[in-house]
């Protein structure tokens, strides 16, 4: 009796939860579905659920705008900015986690506060500086900006991971006379590698999806996928299916990465407050 109640409850939950999940994911699913339709089907006022799938849209997008170029930019900028930011974030988090001082807490809070300014507030100065340094429409320039934007999050996340490393291991290393850099490189990094990897995944996702700087600081050479998609916002002729194909290609890598890094997302973006 209790058992069958439990099963009923589970089935009811399944139905409700799946309904909710499908409703929420519906727009994304619809997007992917549309990418396989013909343009007339895509623009039709009565949505088609069943149709003959075609790959012509994917081919057409690739032909028109050299998708690979934009995708390469996205990869280079997101991975590059993450690696570059790690160079700053790892030493910083290490110091604050293992050699805390009275000012560590306020330093951390200050670092967090640098993230609070909406990026558009820095638009004009950054644009002018980039122009003078010939960094406009360069991957290096966009990479720098993304690195700086993500730095606070990286530092905080690594800080929380480092604090979880058992002190005994590091104590032992200290007894052996290891200096701080050695301690960092030989002991800490291997121990906290999973944390570093998941932090990096989060940073890559944030940089990949970053839409403000990539729209304002790039034109063609360094434009990533976000800008590529924006160019479809008022296009010529029939376009829904092609737009869907381009969009699906743009979001696919991150959907996969995101699926792999769910836990880290929470920890990272809440600055470790929720684990």
């Amino acid at each position, binding site marked *: 009796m209790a058992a069958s109640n439990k099963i009923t409850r589970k089935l009811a939950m399944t139905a409700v939860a799946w309904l909710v999940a499908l409703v929420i994911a519906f727009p994304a699913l619809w997007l992917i579905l549309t990418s396989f339709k013909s343009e007339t089907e895509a*623009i039709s*006022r009565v949505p088609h659920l069943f149709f003959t799938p075609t790959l012509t849209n994917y081919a057409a997008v690739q032909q*028109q*705008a050299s998708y690979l170029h934009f995708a390469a930019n996205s990869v*280079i900028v997101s991975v*590059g900015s993450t*690696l*570059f930011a790690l*160079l700053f974030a790892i030493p910083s988090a290490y110091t604050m986690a293992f050699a805390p001082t009275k000012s560590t807490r306020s330093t951390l809070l200050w670092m967090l506060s640098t993230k609070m300014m909406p990026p558009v507030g820095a638009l004009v100065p950054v*644009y*002018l500086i980039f*122009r003078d340094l*010939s960094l*406009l*429409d360069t*991957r*290096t320039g966009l*990479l720098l900006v993304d690195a700086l934007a993500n730095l606070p999050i990286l530092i905080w996340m690594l800080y929380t991971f480092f604090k979880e490393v058992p002190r005994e291991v590091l104590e032992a290393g200290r007894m052996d006379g290891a200096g701080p850099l050695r301690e960092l490189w030989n002991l800490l990094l291997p121990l906290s590698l999973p944390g570093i990897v998941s932090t990096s995944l989060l940073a890559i996702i944030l940089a990949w999806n970053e839409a403000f700087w990539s729209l304002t600081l790039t*034109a*063609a*050479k360094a*434009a990533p996928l976000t800008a590529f998609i*924006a*160019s479809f*916002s*008022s*296009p*010529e*002729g*029939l376009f829904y299916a092609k737009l869907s194909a381009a969009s699906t290609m743009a979001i696919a890598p991150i959907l996969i990465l995101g699926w792999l890094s769910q836990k880290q997302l929470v920890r990272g973006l809440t600055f470790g407050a929720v684990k």
Partner: protein
Amino acid sequence: MRLRRLLLGLALLAPLHAQTTLTIATVNNGDMIVMQRLSKQFEQLHPDIHLDWIILEEKILREKTTTDAAMHGGQYDVVTIGPLEAPIWGRRGWLLSLEDKLSPAYDVNDLIQPVRDGASANGHLYALPFYAESSLTYYRKDLFAAAGLSMPAQPTYADIEHFAARLNDPAHDVYGICLRGKPGWGENMAYLTTVANTFGGRWFDPAWTPQLDSPQWHDAVTLYARLLQKYGPPGSSSNGFNENLTLFENGRCAMWIDATVAAGSLYNAAQSKVAATVGFAPAPIAVTPRGAQWLWFWALAIPSSSKHSAAALQFIQWATSKEYVQFVAHENGWAAIPPGTRESTYKLPEYLATAPFAQLTYRSIMAADPLHPTLQPVPYSGIQFVVIPSFPTIGNQVGQIIAAALVGNMTVDEALTKAQAATTRVLARTGKPQ
């Protein structure tokens, strides 16, 4: 140290070219996309030049190219601009002057005069016109015939409203009239200004006082809003040229007043469902024919901050040459050639034979007089815009306000009062143009 190596490594990831790379910024209209596709021929003719295309929506394109030109950013080697930018940027030294750098084979005197004038300032030519346009009334001959209506040789707005009312049939997915509603000085305001012109209105009086609260503007905007609210498709306030083109091609509009360049696409059966039944008539008039049809062109120019101006010069001559016109005709048919820039184009018998809209386009362009755009005297030039540096600002703000009136957020009078205030404000800030 590691940092520099890292940055260097990243920089080397950029593709290596032993050639010059030209960055070309252009608008995402059909003719430009054709140009991009056919530019492979240019790359074959000039193996040392590689073309990098940036194809953007008009609004975004303008932002990028204007900021780059003003800040001498050097991001682009070729920019696509219109008659608002060309004279202003030319006078400011943001563009290379071209008339003394063209090859004789280019035949610069073949350029249609009003268009050439629009691309020049102080006697210097600053941009080579790629295509030019005026405005036309497109209509569905089949729907007209079925309703027993006929389009007069020169329709008036009273005619248009009458036709729209008769042909509006939302139950069958056909709307009486499609017009631009998307906010922007080059979007809804371009069309609306011609309506204001033909009702006898103007943007500014000779003392540069804005005239948006005048009865002529009131009549124009009221008619515009009424047409779209009663007989227009849903979502009008976000429909620009491309969206309306798609609608008309799919048979959803009985009439559409917009750029002459749409004719090529509408007439192309591969793209347009209504190719066999589309009809063409001049843009409608009301009180006066002055300023009823607009004049616009897209021209290719070279920013003075470009580092590859020699190669850029070769490209823009190629893209605006007589040979290019023939090339497009050969590849895509005569109806698809970039129109409105060369006298020679309108003497080609094959073109005139296959494109029934050619003569009307030519006549509309020749009738457009940017130096005398309105019934009453004005201190500015430009038909569907005002050639002053602050016009984009003014036009964009007013465009947004009009869009709000269109969707019913405010009445036409409220909108025009707000528009008047906004225009006065901007002009007070930037100072009256000399």
